[in-house]
């Protein structure tokens, strides 16, 4: 399978990339890892006339602590997220997520920024970033803006990114002490898209009650799902089994799965309940550790 013809651009700076986007408008696609875009182009599901390859732009790959956040450059490869000591220590939920994406070869090229900007409800990072209340930094012709991930996904493969904008950085607020998170993915085989994926991030207060909870869901709607009600249900609670079960029912109610090869909608709703409970248990265990 061979992609349709296109013109290839390899800008050396973000400014150059922005001006290429201005010139070529809606006919251009940005290439970073290419592990979703190229398969779509080979299947002719995408036929961009211009490819703007950002891989030659320096300084877009990094993981660092800054201003109470973990800042991750948009071109940081999955393999580097997975092997980062900062991520393993500060955000085990992100480490869980990264290692379940596709397979090692894909993770060697795939980027965190691309995983979000692609807007695929089947991608794994969106749920985790929703649970963590992360933000994305976006550069456009008018300058920079920052958007909460909870407002970033607006439709099927659609984000608030305009055609002439570039996602440059992901900012994850560093969780306070007594916090923990986890991501669990039900998949038919290693490397598949999730049948259901659940991300949960929990913070405890000094008495061990829930101070904050964020829950995100993968591949159970046409957009990544932020299960706000499920999180709210937990805040202030002692996180008993009943609390977890009640949150799991609310998470399931927030999902809108459809029947497909991975299972019926009813099955997926049930699996959201099961995985939400399990993911919360692990998140709480980590918060208590």
């Amino acid at each position: 399978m061979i992609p349709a013809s296109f013109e290839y651009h390899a800008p050396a700076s973000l400014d150059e990339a922005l001006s290429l986007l201005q010139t070529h408008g809606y006919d251009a696609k940005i290439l970073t890892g290419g592990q979703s875009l190229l398969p779509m182009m080979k299947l002719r599901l995408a036929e961009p006339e211009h490819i703007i390859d950002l891989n030659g732009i320096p300084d877009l790959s990094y993981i660092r602590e800054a201003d109470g956040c973990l800042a991750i450059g948009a071109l940081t490869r999955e393999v580097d997220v997975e092997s980062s000591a900062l991520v393993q220590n500060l955000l085990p939920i992100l480490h869980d997520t990264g290692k379940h994406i596709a397979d090692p070869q894909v993770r060697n090229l795939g980027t965190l920024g691309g995983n979000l900007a692609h807007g695929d409800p089947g991608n794994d990072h969106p749920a985790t970033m929703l649970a963590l209340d992360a933000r994305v930094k976006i550069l456009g012709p008018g300058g920079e803006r920052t958007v909460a991930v909870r407002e970033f996904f607006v439709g099927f493969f659609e984000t608030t990114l305009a055609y002439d904008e570039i996602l440059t950085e992901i900012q994850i607020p560093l969780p306070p002490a007594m916090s923990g998170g986890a991501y669990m993915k039900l998949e038919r085989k290693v490397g598949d898209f999730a049948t259901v994926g659940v991300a949960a991030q929990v913070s405890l207060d000094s008495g061990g009650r829930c101070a904050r909870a964020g829950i995100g869901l993968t591949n159970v709607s046409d957009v990544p799902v932020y299960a706000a009600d499920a999180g709210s249900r937990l805040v202030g609670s002692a996180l008993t089994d009943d609390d977890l079960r009640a949150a799991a029912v609310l998470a399931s109610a927030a999902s809108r799965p459809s029947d497909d090869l991975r299972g019926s909608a009813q099955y997926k709703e049930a699996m959201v309940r099961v995985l939400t409970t399990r993911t919360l248990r692990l998140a709480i265990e980590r918060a208590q550790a």
Partner: protein
Amino acid sequence: MATKTISLTVNGQEHSCDVEPRLLLVHLLRDMLDLTGTHIGCDTSHCGACTVLLDDRSVKSCTLLAVQANGKSIKTIEAMAEGGQMHPLQECFKEHHGLQCGFCTPGMIMRAAELLERNPSPTEEDIRWGISGNLCRCTGYVNIVKAIQHAADKMQQQEAAA
């Protein structure tokens, strides 16, 4: 569409090629450079038969544009044997029957090469997880895992002896 001139190093040899931007790396290797050891299995990024090393990282060459390899270094299965001597991975795949039809083997070996480079003494789970992007329809993986385990031992012994 206009072609692009790219230069890249393949198996230690420099090449300059005029390519259409849509040309995939695997087609450059097989059709332009006659390096047919890299196989095309699924063509949909699932099977890993086309795995090569791009600047020492294993990647699926059916899911990378040749223009993306501009200025980079590629290593394929053809460069694993040196001076007529098979690489320990190749020897161990042979000794431990790590292949039947052999179609997936070049990809398996290139993927295992990076795995052992990063983790010289992997557990069985590390190996199984490490080759999760490579499909084999014959063996059931048992002997592939065994071959990689033995290659890891062999490479460590060679290292210790050197």
